[in-house]
């Protein structure tokens, strides 16, 4: 990767309970130059029939990314900052292994282009010391990008959690989810 100004003091904090389903982040995401006008962020109803609850999902940038491990083409690269990049355009064979294996449901397969694309934390912006597009437009702070001190001041009753348990599998991530104070892991039954 080229020279960067990536600021390792800054981190991503997601609180999907605060998501109001406005899709502003989706519009902003399509402005990110690394994904060429395609929106990578996911906003969806959790259970449309029963509740108006929506959820928002960015790539969690796993410490040991399942997506990269299952890729048969070695197309997914994790850089020295822990950012897991979108598929290498010349290598990805569009097999969808990553799409189906990612525990957070993040990568998207562009069918016709035979290419997987996903959130890379707006690398064009974060590598220049700026915030990701989605976090700059989210009106409810479901998506927040800043320092740990800032989020502690804003949410004194919450705790950033970056460990998840999917059945038997523990997954640790670079991106945090805001949880009740004293929580250390989000367990997905």
């Amino acid at each position, binding site marked *: 990767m080229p020279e960067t100004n990536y600021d390792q003091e800054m981190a991503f904090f997601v609180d999907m309970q605060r998501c109001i389903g406005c899709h502003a982040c989706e519009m902003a995401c399509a402005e990110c130059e690394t994904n060429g006008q395609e929106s990578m962020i996911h906003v969806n109803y959790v*259970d449309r029939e029963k509740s108006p609850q929506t959820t928002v999902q960015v790539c969690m940038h796993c410490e040991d990314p399942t997506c990269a491990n299952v890729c048969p083409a070695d197309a997914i690269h994790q850089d020295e900052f822990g950012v897991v990049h979108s598929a290498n355009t010349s290598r990805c*064979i569009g097999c969808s292994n990553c799409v189906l294996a990612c525990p957070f449901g993040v990568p998207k397969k562009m069918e*016709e282009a035979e290419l997987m694309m996903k959130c890379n934390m707006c690398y064009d912006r974060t590598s220049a010391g700026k915030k990701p597009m989605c976090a700059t437009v989210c009106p409810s702070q479901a998506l927040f990008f800043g320092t740990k001190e800032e989020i502690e001041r804003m949410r004194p009753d919450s705790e950033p959690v970056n460990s998840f348990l999917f059945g038997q599998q523990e997954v640790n991530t670079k991106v945090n989810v805001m*949880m009740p104070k004293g929580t250390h892991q989000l367990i997905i039954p």
Partner: protein
Amino acid sequence: MFRLFKTLNRLALIKATIAAVLTIALVLIGSRNLQNFDPALIAYLIGTVFAIFGIAYRYSVWIQRPPTKLYWRRSMQFLFSKYFFPYLWRSTKLFFRNILFQRFIAYRSRTRWFGHFMLATGCLLAFAITVPLTFGWIHFVLKPGDETTYYALLFGFEAGSFSLGSPLAFIAFHGLVWCSVLVTIGAVMMMKRRFTDGGLIATQSFENDWLPLILLIAISVTGLGISYDYTFLEGKTYQFMAVTHAITVVLFLVWLPFGKFFHIYQRLAQLGANLYKTEGKRRGMATCPHTGKEFATQTHINDLKKVSKELGFNYDKEGGRNHMDLSPEGKRSALATAHLKARKEGGKLFG
């Protein structure tokens, strides 16, 4: 030295050696024991044999990785099934469409496709011309008494003739010039993107992205230089042109197995991935327990569970369920549901 042998992949080493030896044997047979071999091409020959060794080694290491191995095994199994003919036909069509014409790149952008198509076509045609010449498989001779008819020898057998100055001669002797022009146009188009596209600027690196393009242009320009030299300069700069061209080509050949150019032969796997999906669909789709919709083939989900376990991931859940049974949307909803539950238990919904 011992450590080196330990880190070397034995199976890959054996396969690469066989590939290299086989190539040398074919060179000896095809050139009639080097009778038809052009000694001026010795550097290119050594470079090509090294490239074949490297490619076989890298390819073999690559298909030993669990997910790659699985695709490889499945592709063979599905191709050589009772659907052999329809699948062969389908794969052949896709070989033209996606490998030789790389049409899928057009869905990323038309100029991206055009640039790459020029570059790849120039390069593949150049391989088709130079490899048989370098190996001595094709050789041109004049016969005594007739100074205007060239005879082409293929594997030492006479395979045709054409007279000097004919259109066929023009194409045969200028083929590489056209290839260089195609490669240069393509590489310049790809380079332009790297100067202007913000996403590429943020993620590119010199050795992985710029160097391949620079090298392709260097090969083309020095190649054109040789042609320019004998057409207009009466060979005055021949030495210089020939040496710089040989250096750039050998650098390319030596680098072929490692960097960006690995995709040239790695991408054949795209055909396997397509076959995998086609046969998977025939066998039946997986339905997401959350959305109730079909989202992938059941074969794919079952295989992925196995492969991810081999790689040290276990997404098994209570009651014989597995996290991978959920579609991507189902997974996002499962996470949000678990999060809502935790927030409710914590007593403060919005932190």
